[in-house]
């Protein structure tokens, strides 16, 4: 049941995840703020509402799987796994360091990470394999895969789209983080892929488009997608890259940007102010 308290908690969690991401990026080091922050609400909903998890055992056999095909946004996944208590908070600051646990891209060494992704275009295929395995074993585990919009130019995604449709996979829900910016600029200018919704529909998928920053809409879309049987579902998250930090929103420079001292302080102050408003 969706209620106001829960929505409020998830809104707060999404901002907490953003704070964690900013903490991981720190000052003077490049970090994928943009594509991490665009996913904060979806990640909060998945890990703290929709997904079946065993918090005491990250490898619990009944758990759902979440694969970040756009693996460069690993920071937002780490932020959530940390809040779940899967690893100590101290690891956040050690991200991408030689003796740290958290790799630059998703790696199985991190509790809660289910596959190696980051070389773009592969996550949906990995998810299809997992979904087939669960179906074969008559298990109810659900697979969630998050793709980027820049990533849509990877041909393998469309191989996987056809496979999921061919095998009538309905224990997998895919997300497309439609934040309209990729590594070197605006997606429309770099490599335009118009009508993504129609393309996925044509590939045999049920397509649902929602405001990717609206908690209630995301919850509703996931529930709707899970009710659809005999075909795979895609939720297009209409998002703002860099969301919640005024100077980083919709700014290609923050795809993998650096915060100086002043910018970091301003960013953290903005996030905390928004958190207090929830």
């Amino acid at each position: 049941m969706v209620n106001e308290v829960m929505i409020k908690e998830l809104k707060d969690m999404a901002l907490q995840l953003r704070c964690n991401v900013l903490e991981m990026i720190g000052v003077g080091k490049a970090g994928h703020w943009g594509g991490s922050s665009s996913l904060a609400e979806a990640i909060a909903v998945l890990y703290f509402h929709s997904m079946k998890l065993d918090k005491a055992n990250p490898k619990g056999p009944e758990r759902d799987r979440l694969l970040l095909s756009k693996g460069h946004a690993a920071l937002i996944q780490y932020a959530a796994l940390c809040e779940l208590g899967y690893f100590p908070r101290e690891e956040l600051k050690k991200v991408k360091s030689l003796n740290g646990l958290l790799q630059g891209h998703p790696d199985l060494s991190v509790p809660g990470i289910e596959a190696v992704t980051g070389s773009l275009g592969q996550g949906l295929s990995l998810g299809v394999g997992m979904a087939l395995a669960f179906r074969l074993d008559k298990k109810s585990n659900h697979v969630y895969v998050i793709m980027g919009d820049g990533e849509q130019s990877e041909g393998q995604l469309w191989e996987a789209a056809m496979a999921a449709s061919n095998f009538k996979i309905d224990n997998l829900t895919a997300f497309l983080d439609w934040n309209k910016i990729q590594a070197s600029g605006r997606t429309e200018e770099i490599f335009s892929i118009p009508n993504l919704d129609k393309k996925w529909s044509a590939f045999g998928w049920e397509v649902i488009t929602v405001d990717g920053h609206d908690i209630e809409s995301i919850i509703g879309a996931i529930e709707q997608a899970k009710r659809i049987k005999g075909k795979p579902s895609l939720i297009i998250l209409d998002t703002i890259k860099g969301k919640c930090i005024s100077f980083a929103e919709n700014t290609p420079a923050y795809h993998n940007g650096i915060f100086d001292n002043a910018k970091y302080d301003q960013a953290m102050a903005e996030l905390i102010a928004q958190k207090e408003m929830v």
Partner: protein
Amino acid sequence: MEKKSLRLAYGEALVEEGKTNRDIVVLEADLGKSTMSCFFKEAYPDRYFEMGIAEQNMASTAAGLALAGKIPFYSTFAVFAVGRAYDQIRCGIAIPEANVRICGSSCGLSDFGDGKTHQSIEEANIMCTIPGMTVLNPCDAIETRKMMKAMVKHQGPVYIRINRNDLPVYTSTEDEYEIGKMYRIVEGSDVVIFATGAMVWKSVEAAAILTAEGISAEVINVSSLKPLRKEEILKYVGGKKAIVTADESTKIGGLGSAIASLIIGEVNLPFEQIGVNDEFGTSAHSYEELLVRYGLTEKDIAQAARKALTK
């Protein structure tokens, strides 16, 4: 010498292993009748996934199945199994050490008619460079069968290459088999020939030629291209006057360079390498014709041994 199909051995082994191990699943990219994975489809249709002509998706899907507890075997022609899906193998399978078994069928020059686009003289070398990857190259149908059994039990990713043509059967079902071990096929004292795949029998024939000339050649079957163990090599090098290596892949990064890199500085013996020079394959009417064209016959191996012994 009786010849048997390694492809048939692969297909039959899938079915036999799949009978007792329900976690085994098979993926194919529209070449199941050639790789002979199609037998598995007949036996266990629910565990067989026809992935269409989409090797990248097949490799990553196999990785997903493995990460969810299955033991997937995916097969297609060697050149595609590796070449079309290198990064999917690297990131999705090798880095997470997933239990995916990759079968590169019609390996080497064995797909003689189809020519350079379908022949694969470099894929085994590429696979050997991937950290943690096990690379197997059976010499006959019996060894193929034994490798399949070992692969099911093995932890981590494995690549197996399967020759398209029927090859002489000379190993025994009675002999033990272990991944990473080398096996002596012919005992000799002057020169040791380390050979792999189809080149093992060619080396046995070369040893017979040399025997007639009074040269005693030992033939070692290196069916595990990786792991390739130094102690195994040294075991057979001891007491010999020269070393010859023979494989059907490009010499660059092939069996010869792999063995040389392990013993360099420790063994100071004349060394000759049989393999494909820095060039692609070509179409021919028979496999034998190609082996002559690329210098991979018993005569070439015998000549390499003579040359090494006179150095």
